[in-house]
């Protein structure tokens, strides 16, 4: 169990900079998820922590000790690979025992630890099998078992669920959450799936283009994205990002009309900004109080909730989430209103700007 400190981590492959200065500290026992689109550097960052990649600049500190130049085998971390990377010629038991043998742990102790992990992961009946004779989910559990028998300082997970089918992925996600609750331990988890990130993480690190966009608790990122990228990345369906303006007195204008009661401030006057509003914060309303009027292009009825995809004047595209089942059809014209307390405004550089509103619900 240990904390981790990253300072100004840089990684270049020749002329290509993959990590452009990453600073991050992770507390002991924390479950941190790195999330971001493909190629954002999240896997590389994990491999840098693991010691499988050397850094071009910066320092990695584990428990106050600088391990930047320490090889992976001496860092005492455990990793679950996307491909599982089980030893194909060894039984499940030997796969889990291998690292302990390397550490010179006594045979009875190895046996006890392997059996305890196997019981925890429901692998006891498969200990004598080779990985080739296991299903995807079982292999996944062996890979996790191989990590937990070692009682490592930090667990590293590299997209561990991406090779599982949808149902198994949801089940394994729950098991991982339960596992963290049971054994504790610092865990760093890489995924491109924001649902995994939202459900598993104590803290999410959103990466984009080799930089950290925002770090925070899942709901903080959801409620208060620091910039356009995070706003668009976290949440599904995506937040509606609408081109907007600010008039001379500092009030927000959408499609040329002032949005009553939203005043980003006079310092943004005349600038093009982006208005962000999540699908669930758009509601149907009576025509007089409408912020916009849209025509429904597509309706997705999911039973418990309904998604409307609609468009309005001046290329306005809106996704609307409504509770329950709604009697709306394609082509219907709807007046909609945005929940004033839940709006986001981003300036031309993509940074979130405070809104001149009544204070938002506590973060």
């Amino acid at each position: 169990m240990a904390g981790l400190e990253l300072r100004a981590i840089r990684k270049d492959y020749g002329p290509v900079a993959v990590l452009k200065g990453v600073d991050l500290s992770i507390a002991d026992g924390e479950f941190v998820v790195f999330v971001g689109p493909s190629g954002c550097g999240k896997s590389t960052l994990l491999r840098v922590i693991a010691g499988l990649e050397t850094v071009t600049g910066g320092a990695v500190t584990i428990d106050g000790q600088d391990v930047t130049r320490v090889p992976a085998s001496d860092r005492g971390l455990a990793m679950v690979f996307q491909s599982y990377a089980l030893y194909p010629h060894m039984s499940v038991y030997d796969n889990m025992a291998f690292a302990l043998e390397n550490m010179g742990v006594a045979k009875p102790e190895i046996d006890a630890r392997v059996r305890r992990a196997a019981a925890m992961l429901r692998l006891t009946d498969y200990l004598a099998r080779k990985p080739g004779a296991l299903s995807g989910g079982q292999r996944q559990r062996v890979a996790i078992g191989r990590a937990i028998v070692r009682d490592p300082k930090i667990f590293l997970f590299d997209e561990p669920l991406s090779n599982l089918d949808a149902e198994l992925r949801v089940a394994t996600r729950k098991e991982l959450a339960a596992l963290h609750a049971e054994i504790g331990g610092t865990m760093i988890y890489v995924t491109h799936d924001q649902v995994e990130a939202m459900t598993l993480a104590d803290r999410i690190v959103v990466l984009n283009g080799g930089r950290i966009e925002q770090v925070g608790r899942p709901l903080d990122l959801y409620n208060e994205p620091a910039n356009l990228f995070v706003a668009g990345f976290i949440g599904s369906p995506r937040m509606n990002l609408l081109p907007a303006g600010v008039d001379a007195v500092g009030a927000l204008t959408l499609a040329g009309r002032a949005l009553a009661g939203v005043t980003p401030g006079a310092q943004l006057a005349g600038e093009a900004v982006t208005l962000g509003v999540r699908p669930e914060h758009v509601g149907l309303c009576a025509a007089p109080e409408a912020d916009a009027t849209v025509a429904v292009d597509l309706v997705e009825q999911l039973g418990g909730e309904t998604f409307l995809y609609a468009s309005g004047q001046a290329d306005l595209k809106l996704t609307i989430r409504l509770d329950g089942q709604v009697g709306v059809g394609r082509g219907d014209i709807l007046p909609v209103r945005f929940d004033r307390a839940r709006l986001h405004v981003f300036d031309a550089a993509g940074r979130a700007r405070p809104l001149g509103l009544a204070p938002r619900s506590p973060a």
Partner: protein
Amino acid sequence: MTANHRNAGTTRPAAHRNRQHRSPEPMTSPAPSAAPVRARFAPFERLGLALVRLFDPPMRAVQRLVGVGRMPYVFLLPNALFFGVFVFLPIGINIVFSVTGGTALFPSQRPYVGGQQYAYLLDCGSYLEPATCREDHFWRGVANTLKFTIFQMIAMVLFSLAAALVLNRPIRGRGFFRAVFFFPVLLSPVVVALIWKWILQRDGLLNAVLTTAGGEKILFFVDPGWAMFWSVFVSVWAHMGFYTLILLAGLQAIPRDIYEAAEMDGTRPWRTLVRITLPLLWPNLLVVLVLVLIRSVQVFDEVFVLTGGGPGTATMMIVQYIYTTAFANQVQNFGLAAAASVLLGLVLFGLTLLQLYFTRRKAA
């Protein structure tokens, strides 16, 4: 819900694109660039068409005659004929020679002697002591071949394994070194033997170096031990590139992430070699072992050119014995040589079955 949503979105387009890509391409690609290409290949096209016109009518006639289902055999026939004339027929003739006696060349003039040639070859006081055998040269050849095979197998596997392990690492100039190790394989064994003969003979390069350095000349081809050593050495030098290549292919087939997992597991290099690399390479190693075994039992040309079988009979291998008995001795004893060939053939047949078994098991 969103999890599968996203995943399906990332994986499907790739597969989709591939599938779509393949079918329209052959249709669209000839159109824009076809004209100049076609002009350049026009003579070949005319030649090809002429050939087609020449062979098409008779082949059609044959097809009408035998039916479409039997056409593959028609195509196999030419090769089968060559194979029969140059492989199966000689094997048959060889067996006939091995059960007849005398010095006559034509089987029709040779008296039938049954198993006498074999009996003569196998007549020994003790099989462990070649000198007690009636045909002691044959057994000397067997003993030499055995000795050669054992040493060569060990050395070949060790050196090619070491070379493959080194060449599999990210070293500088790796491509160059891979080529260098493979180069001797391209040479004729006779050329290899001649090169090393010039180096090792009494007034050869190595002795020149030794005397310049103040040492004494060593007569490598006069000492039986040295002669056998250099036979093995030259043979390993000449062929190890081939086996290195097989092992290198095997090493590269081991996924990188398994090594990364081993690294995360804190595995020391030696233990990685013994517990990860060698077990995963084992199917390839078995194939190499059996291939080396087969080749070394058959060894002839490089050793014969290098040492001539000497000193005395110290490096005379079975194949050389067969060659000498049949063609090089003053009395050409075809029958005895044929019998020895059949025995050697049986051993090789067994080894080949072994190799097929291992190859098949590796594929399974």
